[in-house]
């Protein structure tokens, strides 16, 4: 059985319930948001730990706030990670399952490592007085998150090499069923996912300064310092990221001809624009926090572009074996597609309400009171959730009575 036939045989025979391009687009979008939060977590923890190593400095003062950011962003990273985890199994099922099973110990280990890392982050944040837990937990958390990153990286690379799977599965006299080995590691690719942690936290620091400035109790000198330090961190790390990106491109298989790919070249172009913008902020702006929004939006666009590039690259890798995401049988299921689409639109509205409350409340010192519009939005959000339950339950009752009787 050759690799192409193996991949065909492994594809789920039940097919996909909607057009695979939609799952692909959702996978890229949600992965971009997920990796942003992963980078925010890593960057926040790294700077929080660094700050504690430099007592009495602005970094030190910033440390508890960033430790708190890390605990919230890891939660966001986990929940946002569920979506690409789901969609990759829909359109790349043979790759996902085979790559995971070949290193199953590590797959389960990933879960344990993440729990330990998350718990340590909370101990670092809440463990001591004034949100200054033992520094050892900060190091431990950061180290474990990096280990989690190594595992995910290895699985992602293993996924791209179906021609090697059977070799990895063989042992003397039989099958290697322990799942105890990680089989692939690409330093350039790994660093390309890790270094942006510093860029993201740098831009976050600019945003942090912009956000807190209007508060009556704000220490403007400290916020100015935070924005400047963030701008520096973002620029220098983005520059390093550019170099690593070039290294990664050069390590790609030669027959991929990366310089001919509009996706890869477009991703590189976005990276260059990002570096240029950050250079302008770092060297040309007196108050980097004034550029927090443009920098954050450009970062979002760049990460989305990079996620698209990564997907385009994956399609080239798997295309070598004749695999495309369009190979599954298409068995359209409109009912469940409508269920998700409607829920998604409703969910965006409800989440926007929650975030608006958090945003406005945190920007004011003391107690904050919602205006009539926001109160109405809150009532509508609750109403939408109740309506969702009523519609789905109503549908369920009708279907149940029709099919199973009383």
């Amino acid at each position, binding site marked *: 059985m050759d690799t192409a036939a193996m991949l065909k045989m492994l594809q789920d025979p039940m*097919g996909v319930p909607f057009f695979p391009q939609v799952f692909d687009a959702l996978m890229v979008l949600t992965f971009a948001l997920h990796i942003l939060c992963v980078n925010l977590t890593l960057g926040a923890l790294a700077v929080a730990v660094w700050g504690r190593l430099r007592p009495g400095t602005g970094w030190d003062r910033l440390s508890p706030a960033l430790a708190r950011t890390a605990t919230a962003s890891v939660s966001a990273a986990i929940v946002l990670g569920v979506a690409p*985890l789901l*969609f990759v199994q*829909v359109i790349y099922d043979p790759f*996902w399952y*085979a790559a995971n099973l070949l290193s199953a110990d590590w797959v389960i280990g990933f879960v344990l490592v993440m729990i330990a890392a998350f718990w340590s982050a909370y101990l670092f944040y809440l463990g001591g007085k004034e949100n200054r837990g033992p520094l050892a937990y900060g190091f431990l958390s950061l180290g474990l998150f990096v280990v989690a990153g190594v595992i995910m990286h290895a699985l992602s690379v293993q996924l791209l090499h179906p021609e090697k799977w059977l070799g990895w599965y063989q042992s003397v006299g039989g099958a290697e069923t322990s799942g105890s080995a990680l089989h692939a590691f690409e330093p350039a690719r790994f660093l390309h996912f890790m270094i942006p942690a510093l860029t993201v936290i740098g831009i976050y620091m600019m945003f942090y300064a912009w956000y807190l400035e209007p508060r009556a109790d704000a220490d403007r000198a400290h916020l100015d310092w935070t924005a400047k330090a963030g701008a520096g961190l973002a620029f220098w790390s983005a520059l390093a990221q550019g170099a690593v990106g070039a290294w990664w491109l050069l390590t790609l298989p030669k027959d991929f001809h990366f310089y001919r790919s509009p996706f890869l070249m477009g991703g590189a172009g976005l990276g260059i624009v990002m570096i240029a913008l950050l250079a302008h902020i770092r060297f040309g702006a007196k108050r980097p926090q004034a550029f927090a929004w443009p920098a954050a939006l450009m970062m979002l666009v760049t990460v989305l572009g990079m996620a698209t590039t990564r997907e385009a690259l994956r399609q080239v890798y798997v295309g070598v074996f004749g695999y495309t995401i369009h190979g599954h049988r298409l068995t359209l299921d409109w009912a469940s597609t409508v*269920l998700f689409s409607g829920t998604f639109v409703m969910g965006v509205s409800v989440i926007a309400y929650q975030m608006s409350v958090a945003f406005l409340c945190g920007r004011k010192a003391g*107690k904050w009171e919602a205006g009539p519009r926001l109160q109405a939005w809150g009532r509508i959000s609750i109403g939408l959730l109740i309506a969702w339950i009523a519609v789905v339950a109503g549908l369920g009752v009708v279907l149940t009575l029709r099919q199973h009787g009383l």
Partner: protein
Amino acid sequence: MYPIWEVPHLTAGLVLALIATIHILPSHLSTSAMWLNVYLERKSLKENRPELMAFVKRFSKMILIFAYVFGSMTGVGIWFAATTAAPRGISGLIHNYVWGWATEWVFFLIEVGGIYVYYYTIDKVDPKTHLKLGWIFALASWTTMVIIVGILTFMLTPGHWAATGNFFDGFFNQTYWPQLLMRTTAMFAIAGAYAVAVAAGFGDLKARREIVRTASTWAIAGLALSSLAFLWYRAVLPDAALANLAALATPGLRAVMVWAPALAVAYFAVMAAKPSWARLVPALLAIGLIFSGIFSFERVRELIRKPFVIPGYMYSNQIIAGDLPAKGVQSELPEIDREGILHYAPFVPPDLRDVTDANRLRAGRMVALIECAACHTFQETGLRPLPPRIRKLGATGPGDVAEVLDALGAIPYMPQFAGTDAEKQALAAYLFSISK
């Protein structure tokens, strides 16, 4: 058919069960706790009782840290463990229910964002807005249960899905409503149990008594109603599941399902009558009791759907054993019987594709890995270990074992052997060899 992950003494399936079991504790807390919070917060507002809000803050912090460190990661862990234990099974579910899970994910987003916003805005936003945040969280988190119950019950009773292949035909199946009612009422018991534990160390004595009494009442009502819902659930189980229940549910599992809720009710009755007696350790033991009851139920729920992972369609060992015309899928059994499992499965070392005198035991082990390892270990001890089971049959040689393999299809909870005669003889030889 993917590579096999062999976990000595446990099986990959038991690893999945362990992670899923651990997930129950935080996940049911996250769906239930906010209902108690909004009840207490409303009371605090109406009666101007700030001490109740102090408890709400304490309870919310516990939810935030416990439920969202362990709950979210073990939730993701179930996906990873299912990948390693039953990749084709989870793939089959995902290729049918991807939009269901994606819908649930939207509510997860509301839930996870919601707990942070709720906790960090306590005392910082006006009370009406804060209460709204609580309601949003409570509704969204319960809705995740509304969705996942459809997929969980599908795995036992797929309803008319087998004929139509439609999402909702499988989702609203015959065990959906009883199980939703059972889990919904149980979640109030769980909220009550956790609240007693948190309230046990709460400073304000008057508030502590009131919260313990309220939480205990919730727990008693939840346990009583979920027990009734369980009887409804049992009444609508298909005959095959009931037969499995009789054959596979051990006396220990049955006893825990009955006694755990009964003892928990007794504990909460005492707490309702004497709330000042609330202490942390007994409260944690009560949570443990409820947990053991749920664990037993979940184990039984898994056992009674054997030999299938998706009823009528896919065996526990992930061989597609039934036609699914609505999806254009045919059983793999005829082809496997014709070609041989070692030729059909992609992940087989080349020198084991054909059974020879030289590789018989190794080829037999390969067949065992593919067809038996999902449920059985090959060691002397562990989960359903094969060596003692083979000895128990009184087999005197591989021929006797092969006869048992021939008869597997007649045992209601066992998949039939799939493969050529040579592969069956090799499997028999291997099984006999490990039983000696």
